[in-house]
């Protein structure tokens, strides 16, 4: 029997997030034509996102909308999801892998004694009616495979690991629900401010981006970092940096990719002037395609990269930016 799947989606600035589209795609392939896919959105200002969700292979869409939910805490989100699932025929709950929604996995699983996995990059049904999940561990240096069983499974997907759902017709019905009362263990309830965007460049953030361009010590001076930023802009990519760059103060610590910074797994990772110390590599090795540009042919980065250009980055990177702008019709 095919499972019935609930996808807890997310809207960012009113639009359905990319990882939500990916989760809907996974849900539909799990449910097949017999199983039911329910999309759930929680928050405020969800008209556009819920309308889109209704066209992405769902059987129905539920919307829990309330101005107070703009910055809901994890426990509130969990209470709403539970109200939606408990008593319904839902055997798989799929979550997007965003920071906040991934935290839901632990709460829901603890409440239901459900089998649970986060950061899934592969997901398929098993013969016994459970799920087989693969997830990168140790910063992408190994993959763990788990078989999830039991009446209910909770899985948070890794962003950008799956293609997005494609549009279907006709649109599924969208049902608005009143927010259930959400009790909190703490009195008074926590006050959460509105989301403040930390991005100054206007580009995507490291965790969200499908393309990341990172710069390292090979850039030699802070003013040269703009070469990396220009290349990133031409690709619509997020900008990252090696520890050498953030330690030297050329860019803030939030740019750092690696063991002590962020782990990223975009579709394309471009390493500019990065030697490829293991501490950096563990933060980017799960990227689908890795390109390295470095003057040292012996640099370890070329061992993990798929494609490499050995040469003077000060000549190569501007030429690459120009070429990309050309093919993308930007100049």
């Amino acid at each position, binding site marked *: 029997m095919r499972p019935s799947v609930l996808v807890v989606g997310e809207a960012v600035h009113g639009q359905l997030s990319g990882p939500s589209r990916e989760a809907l795609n996974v849900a539909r392939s799990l449910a097949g034509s017999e199983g039911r896919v329910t999309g759930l959105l929680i928050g405020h200002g969800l008209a556009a996102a819920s309308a889109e969700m209704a066209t992405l292979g769902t059987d129905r869409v539920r919307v829990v909308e309330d101005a107070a939910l703009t*910055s809901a805490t*994890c*426990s509130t989100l969990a209470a709403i999801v539970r109200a939606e699932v408990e008593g319904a025929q839902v055997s798989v709950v799929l979550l997007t892998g*965003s*920071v*906040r929604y991934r*935290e839901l996995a*632990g*709460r*829901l*699983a*603890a*409440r239901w*004694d*459900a089998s*649970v996995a*986060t*950061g899934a990059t592969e997901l398929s049904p098993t013969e016994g009616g*459970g799920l087989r999940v693969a*997830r*990168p*561990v140790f*910063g992408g*240096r*190994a*993959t*763990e*495979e788990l078989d999830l*069983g*039991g009446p209910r499974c909770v899985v948070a997907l890794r962003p950008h690991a799956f293609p997005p759902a494609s549009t279907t017709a006709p649109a599924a019905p969208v049902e608005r629900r009143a927010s259930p009362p959400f009790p909190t*263990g703490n009195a008074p309830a*926590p*006050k*959460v*401010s*509105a*989301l*403040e965007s*930390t*991005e100054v460049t206007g580009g*995507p*953030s490291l965790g*969200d981006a499908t393309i990341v361009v990172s710069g390292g010590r090979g850039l030699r001076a802070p003013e040269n970092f703009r070469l990396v930023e220009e290349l990133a802009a031409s690709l619509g990519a997020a900008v990252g940096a090696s520890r050498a760059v953030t330690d030297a103060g050329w860019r803030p*610590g939030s740019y750092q990719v690696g063991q002590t910074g962020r782990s990223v797994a975009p579709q*394309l990772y471009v390493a500019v002037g990065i030697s490829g110390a293991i501490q950096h590599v563990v933060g980017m090795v799960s990227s689908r*395609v890795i*390109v390295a540009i470095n003057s040292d042919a012996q640099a370890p980065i*070329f*061992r993990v*990269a*798929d*494609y490499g*250009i050995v*040469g*003077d980055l000060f000549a*190569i990177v501007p*030429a*690459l930016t120009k*070429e990309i702008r050309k093919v*993308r019709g930007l100049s």
Partner: protein
Amino acid sequence: MEIVVLVKPVPDAESRLRPNAGGTELDGEGIKWVLSGYDESAVEQALLLKAAVPGSSVRCISFGPAPRTEEVLRASVALGCDRATWVERPVGMPADPLLCARVLREALRKYPHDLILAGKQAGDDEEGIVPSALAELLGVESFGSVVDLRWHAEEKRFRFQCVLDSGSEKVEAAGPLLIGLQQAWNDPRTATLPNILRSRKATIDRLPWSDVAPLLGAFSAGRTTSQRFRLPPPRTGARLIDYQSPEEAAEKLVKILREEAKVFP
């Protein structure tokens, strides 16, 4: 303020990972176990709060097998934690996150606390399930990916920032809370040599498994029917692009990325 920090031993980033013959676990031989980087940030945060709030004390707790669990607890004491509790997990018992959350809930009953800190995820399995599962079991609010946690005594509130995917939120909340710390934002301290020597003599409070197991109640541990590790196929090394001019290099690379790797149209 009574602060509890949850810590976990993880393989050092430079340890060589090798699955055993059946692929069911990673070969322990040659693995160096260290305090997870996220947990280092959590310990640092606890010590910063302790310094800021007079009369505070910090207890670190870990659930895991000998000997690595005791070692990371000693490392936490060397950093400045006042006390340590080791909940012993029998060697070979799988590290199920929900089991871990339940065990930690039982351990926490013994120690009154105003704040629970943890790394937002472990540095090895990167699951991030235990903190929020434990918060759910305890019935407390939880926030992950937190930086810059401060205590405002006059309002009796914590203030901190949550670093989310596309920005950050400022949060004010009263305790008890469970907070998952972001890694490396607070430049965790290094234990000094005298403190390392002292930590060898520190008392580690032990909770044997035989004491904890009966408390867990009916619970279907073992969510997984099997677990395997595989290593990615060794990367064969980059395909290097031949070129005469930077323009040619750029043109060839873009062509490959569009037509062969298909990473952008």
